[in-house]
């Protein structure tokens, strides 16, 4: 079967190259026939990639260890869920996922534009084919990126999936990120097609806006899942560490956000054409960089490990895309002229422009900080890096401005806002902002952090703006159509999905910022070494180490860990008590030098965090048992039972694990009280709901009148 898979990838590469050739030819000759042929080549590519996926997944499911990839990150014991999802934890498998998603997205966009954009689409097809061909050529030509490499001597069992990755969020996180990265390829390809054919109006934007929004939604969801995994699985208790790989996924999301806003100005006013093309090129390049950075090992990071030989081709491809796009923009600068000029600084265009500047500045800051080790070693010869405080110092003020702009942008008038317009839109939100500021400053501990006071006030402003808009819209409908308010609300939203979806997203972002601000400014954290019976206090919580736990094959999250050591904690806050059970999973070492018993403790270990979620605050706990006390008995068992049968070794292991419970050594605990942290995930969910609302297809018959139709209707009515 591996041979069929390899063949499918080879044919896919040829098909992608054909799509490039046919696309360019159709663009030059304007032949519809050739264009259709190029389009079908992309459909064919999608079918081939699905075939390749099915073959590889089938190998994972039956644990066919003659597949090198299966032997590397799956095993007979691996739970089925992780067998299915182990594919994209390998480099080759994730590249294949990339091309599969790209071919599916490309097919969808080419199907939806098959009868429109006749000039642009052939070139866009060629660009999509070229991107697919690049990734496919890596998989076909580079020995370490072949998904269907086989082993002449298959091992008896595979190495299993990296225990750190055995978490549901971690399994959905890569496909989400990749869907985001890949989705931005679609508007990029059409932007290039529009530039080549000099059709630089808003058609390419209209055809691909939905794809940009889908990409943005998935990328955002992927980033959130990663943060959630970090918070609830990694034993350090944070959700964001400004790690290069985190930054790499955030950067295209920021430029993508800017793009989604600035294309509205091009659609509406014919302005910012160069800017929009630049943004989508930047977003695509950053998405490539994100894919590459995880793999490269060029930056020191817990994540970006493994020096890969794919670095050179990736950098070459990124350079080619950048230079090609810049050259294309320069040669087409005549047709990228703006059709209008900015009328006033108090206008929606100006606020959107400012929002774009802030988003791009954020991206520049993060880019600079991420690549600072390379910059500094090039300039001074010494490799130095900047830490989270540096990032926070720049990002926090920019993010605060962004929250305020998210309130102003959607309601300020286009072209030129009048004082009456400003008063009508912002009087109530401004009052809400001042009241929030006053109440928080006088009545709550928030006053100790001026930054968070400002953030909270801006958040109140932005949320009230959105609520006021919905309230007024509902009110107008109730007056005009005499509807009950639930009917008016659903009617209002279903007829203006984009607009109200946007409001919901803004409310969600404001809510998310509430969680970020609260949990970073007012976090309480303590680490302590405790023996059973001892306790520590953190921010009003008293946490008592009641007793140790020690179990064999009883891991709660079903990751297949043989040994789990943990603790039972009694938590008391103002008389209310509850129990938390953090633990730590130990996975056997694959090292042949490890002892027969010792190998169960010397492999990977992962923290199984336990936390109590709450709207006001989370209580987060992790435990690190001290194995030092068990060492003498483990070493002795290794010497005495090296040749013992499996059941005897199992009995010995049980004895040792049992001794941890009967004579518990002190264990190290980390306890974190994280105020408002739950609002990060709630806000994220609201953002996703808003994005889905905007994406949901409008029912054909109930489509809102386009502005052109409305104008025509108006003229006819005035004649009558």
């Amino acid at each position, binding site marked *: 079967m591996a041979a069929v898979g390899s063949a499918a990838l080879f044919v896919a590469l040829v098909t992608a190259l054909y799509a490039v050739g046919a696309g360019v030819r159709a663009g030059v000759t304007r032949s519809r026939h050739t264009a259709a042929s190029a389009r079908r080549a992309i459909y064919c590519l999608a079918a081939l990639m699905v075939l390749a996926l099915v073959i590889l997944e089938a190998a994972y499911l039956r644990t066919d260890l003659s597949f090198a990839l299966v032997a590397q990150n799956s095993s007979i014991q691996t739970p089925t869920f992780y067998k299915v999802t182990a594919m994209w934890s390998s480099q080759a498998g994730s590249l294949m996922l990339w091309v599969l998603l790209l071919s599916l997205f490309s097919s969808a966009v080419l199907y939806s534009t098959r009868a429109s954009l006749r000039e642009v689409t052939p070139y866009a097809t060629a660009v999509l084919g070229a991107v697919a061909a690049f990734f496919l050529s890596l998989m076909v030509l580079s020995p370490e990126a072949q998904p269907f490499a086989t082993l002449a001597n298959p091992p008896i069992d595979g190495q299993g999936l990296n225990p*750190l990755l055995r978490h549901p969020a971690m399994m959905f996180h890569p496909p989400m990120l990749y869907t985001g990265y890949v989705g931005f390829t679609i508007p990029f390809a059409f932007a290039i097609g529009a530039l080549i054919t000099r059709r630089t109006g808003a058609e390419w934007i209209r055809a691909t806006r939905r794809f940009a929004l889908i990409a943005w939604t998935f990328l955002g969801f992927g980033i959130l899942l*990663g943060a959630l995994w970090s918070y609830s699985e*990694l034993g350090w208790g944070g959700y964001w560490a400004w790690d290069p790989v985190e930054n790499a996924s955030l950067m295209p999301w920021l430029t993508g956000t800017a793009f989604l806003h600035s294309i509205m100005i091009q659609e509406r006013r014919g302005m910012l054409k160069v800017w929009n093309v630049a943004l989508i090129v930047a977003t695509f390049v950053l998405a490539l960089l994100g894919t590459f950075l995880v793999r490269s090992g060029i930056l020191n990071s*817990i994540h970006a490990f493994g020096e890969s030989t794919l670095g050179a081709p990736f950098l070459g491809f990124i350079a080619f895309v950048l230079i090609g796009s810049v050259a294309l923009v320069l040669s087409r600068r005549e047709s990228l002229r703006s059709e209008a000029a900015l009328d006033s600084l108090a206008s929606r265009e100006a606020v959107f422009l400012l929002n774009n500047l802030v988003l791009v500045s954020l991206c520049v800051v993060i880019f*600079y900080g991420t690549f600072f080790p390379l910059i*500094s070693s090039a300039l001074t010869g010494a490799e130095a890096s*900047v830490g989270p405080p540096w990032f926070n110092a720049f990002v926090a003020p920019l993010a605060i401005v962004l929250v305020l702009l998210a309130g102003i942008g959607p309601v300020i008038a286009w072209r030129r806002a009048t004082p009456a317009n400003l008063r009508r839109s912002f009087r109530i939100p401004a009052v809400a902002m001042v009241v929030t500021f006053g109440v928080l400053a006088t009545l709550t501990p928030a006053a100790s952090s001026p930054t968070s006071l400002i953030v909270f006030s801006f958040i109140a402003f932005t949320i009230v703006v959105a609520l006021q808009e919905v309230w007024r819209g509902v009110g107008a409908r109730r007056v005009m159509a005499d509807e009950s308010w639930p009917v008016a609300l659903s009617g209002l939203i279903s007829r203006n999905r984009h607009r109200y979806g946007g409001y919901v997203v803004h409310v969600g972002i404001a809510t998310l910022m509430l969680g970020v601000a609260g949990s970073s400014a007012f976090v309480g954290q303590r680490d302590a070494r405790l023996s059973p019976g001892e306790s520590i206090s953190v921010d009003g919580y008293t946490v008592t180490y009641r007793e140790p736990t020690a179990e064999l094959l009883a891991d709660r999250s079903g990751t297949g860990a043989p040994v789990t050591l943990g603790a039972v904690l009694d938590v008391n806050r103002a008389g209310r008590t509850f129990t938390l059970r953090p633990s730590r999973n130990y996975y056997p070492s694959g090292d042949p030098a490890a002892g027969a018993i010792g190998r169960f403790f010397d492999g990977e270990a992962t923290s199984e965090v336990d936390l109590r979620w709450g709207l006001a605050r989370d209580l987060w706990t992790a435990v*690190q048992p001290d194995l*030092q006390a068990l060492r003498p008995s483990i070493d002795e068992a290794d010497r005495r039972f090296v040749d013992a049968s499996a059941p005897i070794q199992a009995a010995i292991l049980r004895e040792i694990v049992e001794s941890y419970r009967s004579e518990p050594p002190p264990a190290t605990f980390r306890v974190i009280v994280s105020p408002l942290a739950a609002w990060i995930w709630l806000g994220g969910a609201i953002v996703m709901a808003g994005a889905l609302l905007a994406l949901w297809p409008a029912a054909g018959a109930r489509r809102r009148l386009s502005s052109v139709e409305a104008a025509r209707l108006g003229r006819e009515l005035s004649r009558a």
Partner: protein
Amino acid sequence: MLLLATALVWTSFNAATEARTPSQVLEQPAEPGRSYELTGKVVEGSIERDGEALRFAVRDRVGSASVPVSYSGVVPDPFREGREVIVSGALAEGTFMAERDSLVTKCPSKFTNAEEPA
């Protein structure tokens, strides 16, 4: 934008911590008040607990020069003998006194293929 660029360059060089190998830390006397990122591999058999503190030694990736480290705070899950680590701190009387919670462990080569973003 220009203002932002100037601020970025100015602050980054001031705030940055320089990465050094154990032999560099031993050879070059540290400027007082400045901390470094020590990078290298954990020496086999060097890990021991001393009350709150964790003691271990870090050696050059290639070579044998090593520095004893005293560290407190949370130990990352993948921390093992022989693994690549990064830890911030400064040398004081022959021991690298690490800043609390500054220990970062790079994943072992066995998992070079394992993707582990954010």
